[in-house]
């Protein structure tokens, strides 16, 4: 049943994708049209049964270094990516997008960020000129697929969440339309590690204790030359390796860590308590429990928990607590 639902979901996206690629609209009675209609009818409103709501955050430091990190990954895998990766004007090209380094060019800044819905969903969002070859390129990079319902929140100064659309969670600077770059992110933001964007999506497959490979469209632009008009823009579609920062991630880490029964039960008990508070809508109390979790891990880090596991659990717990107390209102109740 889950397979059928999954296939139906893919069908809708595949239909739109094929319509984008096909040179002209197929005739009403043609086999192609019948196939596409079947896919379309079967594809609406379905989410795989194993999809799970997961939380991810993006910090300015992560965003401004993302083109370079992705460039490294894409170049290393260029033998299998083939023509999907190339060079263009001192930048790495992936599919049809161009990813210039923000660390190398201090004048270039990020003004828009969109989390894309995976290999099939991404081409539907980025527009025709960028869509060609994107599905296969993202598939080769093992990009994860996610499903609605999804939400995005930002606390980054001078940034807003874009109106929700299918297969994308978007954020842009408040002056994006007019070319006002106030608040845009550049190389100087590489030291800002506090998360500015939070995204909650239904992830198609469970990443466990690893990162999820998520497609992100990053719009960069040069300074505006004409008042009221944006500077030259470049769209970079990259694959970012992001760790889920939620209770499920902590549960996975506990499960993957060699522990004694007493310690394992204690840590799971704390996480279950946090989950209870979260289910009751009390994020602040859940965050306090997560802090207790981190503290208990630290206190056992030499006696019962190997330091490498302890470090991973403490860092992820910290990020999860921060994600729960993200907005100003949430933070006020957390402190």
């Amino acid at each position: 049943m889950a397979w059928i639902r999954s296939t139906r979901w893919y069908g809708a996206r595949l239909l739109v994708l094929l319509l984008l690629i096909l040179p002209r609209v197929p005739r009403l009675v043609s086999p192609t049209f019948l196939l596409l209609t079947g896919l379309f009818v079967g594809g609406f409103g379905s989410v795989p049964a194993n999809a799970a709501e997961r939380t991810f955050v993006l910090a300015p430091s992560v965003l401004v270094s993302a083109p370079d990190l992705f460039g490294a990954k894409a170049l290393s895998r260029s033998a299998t990516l083939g023509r999907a990766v190339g060079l263009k004007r001192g930048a790495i090209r992936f599919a049809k997008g161009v990813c210039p380094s923000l660390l190398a060019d201090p004048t270039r800044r990020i003004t828009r960020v969109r989390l894309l819905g995976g290999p099939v969903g991404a081409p539907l969002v980025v527009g025709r000129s960028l869509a060609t070859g994107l599905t296969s390129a993202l598939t080769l990079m093992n990009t994860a697929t996610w499903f609605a319902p999804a939400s995005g929140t930002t606390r980054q100064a001078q940034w807003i969440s874009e109106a929700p659309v299918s297969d994308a969670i978007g954020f842009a600077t408040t002056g994006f339309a007019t070319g006002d770059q106030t608040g845009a992110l550049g190389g100087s933001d590489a030291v800002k590690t506090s998360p500015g964007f939070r995204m909650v999506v239904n992830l198609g497959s469970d990443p466990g204790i690893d990162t999820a490979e998520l497609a992100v469209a990053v719009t960069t632009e040069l300074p505006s030359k004409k008042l009221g008009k944006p500077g030259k823009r470049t769209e970079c579609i990259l694959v970012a390796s992001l760790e889920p920062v939620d209770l499920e991630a902590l549960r996975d880490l506990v499960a993957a860590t060699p522990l004694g029964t007493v310690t394992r039960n204690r840590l799971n008990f704390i996480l279950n308590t946090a989950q209870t508070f979260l289910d009751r809508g009390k994020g602040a109390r859940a965050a306090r429990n997560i802090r207790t979790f981190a503290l208990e891990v630290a206190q056992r880090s030499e006696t019962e928990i190997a330091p490498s596991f302890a470090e991973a659990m403490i860092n992820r717990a910290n990020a999860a607590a921060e994600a729960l107390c993200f907005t100003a209102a949430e933070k006020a109740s957390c402190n």
Partner: protein
Amino acid sequence: MQLIARIAAIVTLLAVAQPVRADLMTFQMTVGDALASVGETNAFLVSLGKNARGLKLVPGGTKFAGITCAGFGDVYKLGSVTVLDGPAAFAERVTTKKGKDAALLATAFGLAGLTPWAPPTTEAETDRQLWAATQVSHGVKFATESLDDTGTNDGLLDASSSAGIFRFRAQVPPTAAAGASYRFLVELVGRTASIDSGLVAFGRQRCFTFVDLVPVDVSVLDRLVNESLEDAQVRNGLASRVALLKTALLRRDFVTSLDIMAYIVGHLIARSPEHAIPAAARRVVTGVFDVRRGLDFRPATAACGNGTRETGEACDGTDLGGFTCVSLGYASGTLTCEPSCLLSYGNCVAMPVCGNGVVEINEECDHGAQNSNTAPDGCRTSCKRSFCGDGVIDIFEDCEGNNFGGDVQNCKDLGYEGGTLKCDPVYCEYDDERCDEGD
């Protein structure tokens, strides 16, 4: 007049030529760092645009100035890693096209912000079997014995060995920010693996990259604590713990060292003013784990029981590292080494005097006349560090027994509707389990 001019010139020269302070720091580069550096450096070279003129894309990487960097870790297994002291090394190592390639590389890598450093004469080690470290011109080289062989793959490394460590010491200038990384120029040599016992010619490839590394020395924690933490109480409290950690490490008392490091991390979490650890305190936590990684290192050649004290061992057989019972604060006795290569104090005769200002055996601290049973976070008159249950609310504690301190006396003071506030007897933190949320 001439004499004055000469003196002025000498003074000016001395003032100008004053050397930048350099510290001898320990760095650990993993095999994973080395392999990942190939892609990262390739992306950097692409971003240089016209400053890396002639750069071409090849399958799996790039080709620039006659050097191809592609397929490291999969096609080409790692055979050697040489840490170089800067772009000046290119002139000696890249002699193609009458030095033009070397000049191109020097220009490109000159823009990478490499750390200038002086190669040491010793103290380079690795935990990889069949690998050895040697001093070479402009740096230190780690290489597998089989790199030049024709028939064996022994020692060649790929991603499955990413946790392997190359450790070296370098004289480096202090970083601008506490806990910042240093960027080292590295030359990698890879070799294709043999599938038929050396009957085919091996493919070789070498590649220049850079790697960002953070020192693993405990001295890093001094700066991190002093420059990162704003709260003076927390800062001073942790500075004293870092001092204790240094003493323990000097004495090669690894058990106490690990205990202190866990204590520092735990209390940074406990005393964080927010729900999550602030970025500044997080840097200290990361620094502690970096130092911890440094302590975990064991060179491949090290073998507890071979009679020679090596990295990671407090002693080995009769090699006690120069320590005696007296040098470790005992009155007399014979220091011995346990089979696990930890020092054994069992035969040392303790005669500690609590209150003499010297930390002796069985003493956790000794502040002399400053020892106190009432001062928060002080050294107690028993020469024990302040602890939960000593009746004094220390800086890392919310409460002690029924004493909740000044600001908080009950659940309402913590924002609850009511209930009974308790003090956790183990951690001396507020226990709000019985507080009423009012919902």
